[in-house]
């Protein structure tokens, strides 16, 4: 659910290595793209719009590349709020909303907490007539209440792919199934948590023809059984990305799952690393904008979400922050190379968020017993 995998106690909480920041530093004001069509109808609001984004790398990038242009285009001041990791932010929003408070008006939420917030009607239903760019979004980034009211709009997306060390593994793998191969014994690095590795979805798509099997507990146990077969091949179950990236670059652990854009940066820095979209697809996780019902700035929040859904802004995010676009590719002016650096045309594996919502604790217990057993 959280895409941040730093160990508690590590220096910074961003999921990206420091080198990424230095790359960004050189790009400078490249995000001058922005929204010429944006009507500056809003006079400067008395209070800034508070926007919650993941602390660390995301907040820094948005403060640098996105928010200043948004204010210039619309006259709405933005105050960015660093969200804590995990579901703590959802809890804070819930408690604050009960007291009529909004720690942030617009919030970047992982999909599972977004769905959890729906259960308590935490999110303000959004007015679709004010978000005309909505039809440009890919389907998986539009989130609605069961009765159809809009409550979440894709903010940023990213891919988890099959990565490998080119020195140790000369031929690029083609399928997630290659992780189960005999010759990969003790040579994989996989994410350690059920909620951020999405290995159940990967196993279901690779060996069970799709995710239908994850609809029942029996089915999930069957998939876990298949996943257990990969354990002898796993050298490292990592919680901290830094741990795996170092081992991948040296070839110590020559294969595994990792974040596509970060692996690409390592390759660009000259390390023998490649990121492959397997034929089953990369895992496409995302964060969505959602507005707490306690917000007093509904109008400004709609303007903000409309602004963020523009293809130009999504392209700017891809170029500067390394996120995958949430809008359809044909609307983007990204070059082949720019698009390939963050995404792929191969249909993605979408995480089974409903499963985490319905069976969270049970699933977590089965998972830990499977991988430690």
């Amino acid at each position, binding site marked *: 659910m*959280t895409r941040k995998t730093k*160990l*508690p*106690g*590590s220096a910074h909480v961003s999921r990206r290595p420091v080198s990424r920041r230095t790359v960004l530093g050189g790009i400078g004001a490249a995000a001058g793209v922005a929204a010429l069509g944006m009507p500056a109808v809003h006079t400067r609001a008395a209070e800034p719009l508070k926007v919650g984004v993941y602390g660390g790398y995301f907040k820094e990038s948005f403060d640098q590349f996105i928010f200043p242009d948004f204010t210039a285009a619309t006259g709405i001041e933005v105050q960015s709020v660093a969200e804590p*990791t*995990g*579901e*703590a932010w*959802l*809890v804070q929003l*819930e408690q604050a909303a009960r007291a009529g408070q909004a720690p942030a008006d617009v919030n970047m939420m992982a999909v*599972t*907490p977004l769905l*959890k917030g729906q259960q*308590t009607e935490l999110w303000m239903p959004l007015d679709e007539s004010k978000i005309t760019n909505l039809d440009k979004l890919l389907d998986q980034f539009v989130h609605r209440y069961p009765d159809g009211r809009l409550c979440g709009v894709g903010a940023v997306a990213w891919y988890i792919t099959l990565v490998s060390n080119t020195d140790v593994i000369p031929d690029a793998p083609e399928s997630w199934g290659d992780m189960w191969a005999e010759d990969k014994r003790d040579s994989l690095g996989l994410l*350690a*948590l059920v*909620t951020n590795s999405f290995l159940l979805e990967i196993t279901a798509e690779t060996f069970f023809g799709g995710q239908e099997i994850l609809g029942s507990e029996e089915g999930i146990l069957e998939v876990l059984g298949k996943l257990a077969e990969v354990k002898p091949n796993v*050298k*490292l*179950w*990592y*919680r*901290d990305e*830094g*741990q795996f990236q*170092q*081992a991948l670059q*040296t*070839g*110590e652990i020559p294969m595994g799952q990792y974040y596509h854009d970060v692996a690409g940066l390592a390759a660009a820095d000259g390390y023998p690393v490649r990121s492959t979209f397997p034929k089953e697809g990369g895992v496409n996780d995302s964060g969505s904008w959602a507005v707490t019902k306690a917000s007093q700035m509904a109008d400004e929040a709609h303007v903000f979400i409309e602004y963020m859904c523009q293809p130009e802004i999504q392209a700017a995010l891809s170029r500067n922050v390394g996120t995958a676009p949430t809008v359809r590719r044909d609307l983007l002016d990204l070059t082949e190379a720019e698009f390939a650096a963050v995404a792929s045309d191969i249909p993605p594996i979408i995480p089974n968020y409903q499963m985490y*919502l319905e069976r*969270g*604790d049970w699933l*977590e*217990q089965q998972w*830990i*017993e499977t*991988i*430690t*057993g």
Partner: protein
Amino acid sequence: MRTGKPRSLAEHAPLIYPALMLLVFFVIPFGIMLAVSFFQRVQGGFYEPSFTLDNYGRFLSAFFGNVLGFSLGLSALAAVICVGLAFPFTYLLTRLARRRQIAWLVFLLSVLSLSEVIVGFAWSTLLSRSAGISNLLVAVGLMAEPVSWSPGFAALLIGMCYLAFPYTVLLLYPSLVRLDRELVEAAMTMGASPLRAFFTVVVGAARNAILSGLILAFVFTLGIYLLPQLLGRPQHWTISVMITDQTIYQSNLPFGAAMAIFLMLVSLALIGLTLLLGRQKAAG
């Protein structure tokens, strides 16, 4: 320094400050944790105040029993290794010139400034195939080809001992430095070999310090939660790792708190047992 019991308020005064600190920084947080361990977990919604034993109930399973058993065994082993290495080291240290003793102690103190993260990453590199110690052994001809020793049980044990070793030395140092050297000389004059004199006289005289060293290393390594993730495989994840997973990644504070309380009770019981055995041995 007075020795009688304090009577007036003024005589109690020096105790107020430490008592207050203990209350604010230990008793109250511990009370909160105890309370939370009985709260009702709300999936995805944190917790609600109530009184339930579910959190303790979930812990009482074969799975967590195994994890607890492994954690206690690992820490006990680490404690024995630490004291086994630290005791002769400290004894030899106390026989050095004062100036060199200080240099060693400063070095050990500086090791304490390294965080668990740094120590974990450093050892995982040192024990790796691509950049590790085995490359040196290959270079001098002791090994045919470099191998990977991390992650694994030995790597984890080394990391834990590395972290706990300085503490153990610092705990043993005061009692060993005060040890009368003439005792050893006397034993040797009466015909004991140096080794025998060391084991019967030095070890015997420092029995209490050894016991405290064992307990300190045991408790200290029990709380280590990053090294098992960095240097261990999933079967080496300790109860402290499980507590971290529950509190940080699953937002399940009640279950995390219940595990922490359980761990504390079990380790207190073990320490009590150790002290009891130590006392009986001393008496008998």
